[in-house]
């Protein structure tokens, strides 16, 4: 019996630090050559312009542990790696859009590149972990973008975040960073201890 505890990779965006610069959005699009009209990442802002009340959060696929997209997909194109990253196989995808209906975050994106604007294959954040094609192959890049994870690198969005609002990594480590920021006031980045 194995007691190995795998990492569970998660994003976390600290809304008290996010300044709505959209650097993460641009970095993602640039790194993966994401087509026009598709955004794997977005920044949502509420109370825009109201001083003291404006908050922003950077969002993409949250790589859910119990991913609704995987549950709803009729062709089982989703698969979850042992480290929790939710990936999909574009060769299986039929573009039905069910994952979009099921996703609470609006992560699945569909290029309108078919005849008269019909949907193409689904595209979403891979946490820079590519897809089922051979790692770092041309095919993998064309379908899913860079596989930075395989190179031991942080996903592009988090690595480019100027305020370090966007964190990525094993959920325990991310929680530790957030805890450290909350309790170590005056040392490095400090934020409130609560979320929304």
């Amino acid at each position, binding site marked *: 019996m194995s007691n190995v505890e795998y990492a569970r990779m998660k994003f976390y965006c600290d*809304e008290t630090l996010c300044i709505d610069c959209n650097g993460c959005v641009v970095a993602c699009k640039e790194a993966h050559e994401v087509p026009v009209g598709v955004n794997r*990442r977005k920044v949502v802002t509420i109370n825009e312009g109201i001083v003291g009340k404006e908050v922003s959060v950077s969002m993409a696929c949250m790589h859910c542990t119990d991913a609704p997209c995987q549950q709803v997909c009729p062709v089982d194109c989703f698969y979850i790696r042992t480290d929790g990253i939710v990936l999909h196989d574009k060769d*299986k995808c039929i573009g039905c859009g069910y994952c979009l209906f099921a996703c609470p975050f609006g992560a699945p994106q569909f290029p309108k590149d078919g005849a008269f604007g019909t949907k193409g294959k689904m595209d979403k954040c891979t946490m820079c972990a590519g897809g089922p094609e051979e790692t770092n192959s041309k095919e993998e890049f064309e379908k899913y973008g860079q596989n930075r994870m395989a190179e031991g690198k942080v996903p592009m969005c988090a690595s480019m975040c100027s305020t370090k609002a966007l964190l990525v990594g094993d959920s325990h480590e991310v929680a530790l960073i957030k805890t450290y920021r909350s309790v170590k006031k005056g040392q490095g980045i400090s934020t409130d201890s609560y979320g929304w």
Partner: protein
Amino acid sequence: MENSSFFNRNKAYIYTFAGLGLVGFIFLEFLMVVDWNYFIKYKLHILFGGSLDGILVPATSSYEAMSNAAFGPNYEAFAPEIIRASNERQLYIWWVFVAEIALFCGMYLFQGRRAPVVKNPNDQVEVFNLFQRGVIWLNVAIMITLIITGFNITWGLRSGGGELAFLLRGMHEMTGLIWIPVWMLMSIVAFKDSKMLFRNSLTRKIVIPGTYKPMKRIIYYFFVIMGAGLIVSGFIIWFLHPDAYTNAQFIQFKRMMLYVHFGSSVLLMFFIMDFVYSALVAVKGNYKGLISGKYPREHLEQIAPDVLKELDEKKGKVA
């Protein structure tokens, strides 16, 4: 006297609505997990408020406001049902058709087939003109295509996805777009009840002759209403395409439209199959007439005297 009672005159309507009410109640009450309270309120909110975002009550906390802005409201109202339906119902969908076909087979066994006696097959009467036949067969071809391609998700479930199911899905969208004018033309051509409202030379040329019997009338109105539901919802599902930035504003509306689309398709499919059975299987000789447009006079005398009467009236043969 018994035959002219209210029940006998309206039993097709009574049975249809009682049956639909019973099946609908069981289905909605026990087999679905949609939040119907929200479903109804949301529709009213769209009608009277004009907002599609699904936020029925303004957020009372910054957390709720953030959640609404980022994800859209009330995720649990529709999405869990979509997740359930895509997996469980897809596996049972074949049995719905098996049950329906079994029902018609039973009717065929017990009631048999009406076969009019035609002694003079050369005495033909033109019932459908070229325009009407064109619309009818175009509608048939498009509906068959829509039904086959509409099962792209079911095909995908069986095949594990791939290019064929992907192609079928795209084809369904394109064919649906073509069906919009054809559905409209078909609704006009088959609007026999229009003769109760107006009778002029144009409607006589366009609208097919005869009057509706109760069951056919139900089928016609279901075709028109459910067809409208399919077209509107299908068009919205296709073209209202929330991107990353507009997802929260539109996704709830899109989810609701998926229900409208599926509900309309289920009801339309049932009545279309009923129509195919009653018009083409239960009566011998109807099929050929739909191609040539002509029927033997004796066929019409026995099967559709109302059609013959109207055609004769048109030609001024009836005194």
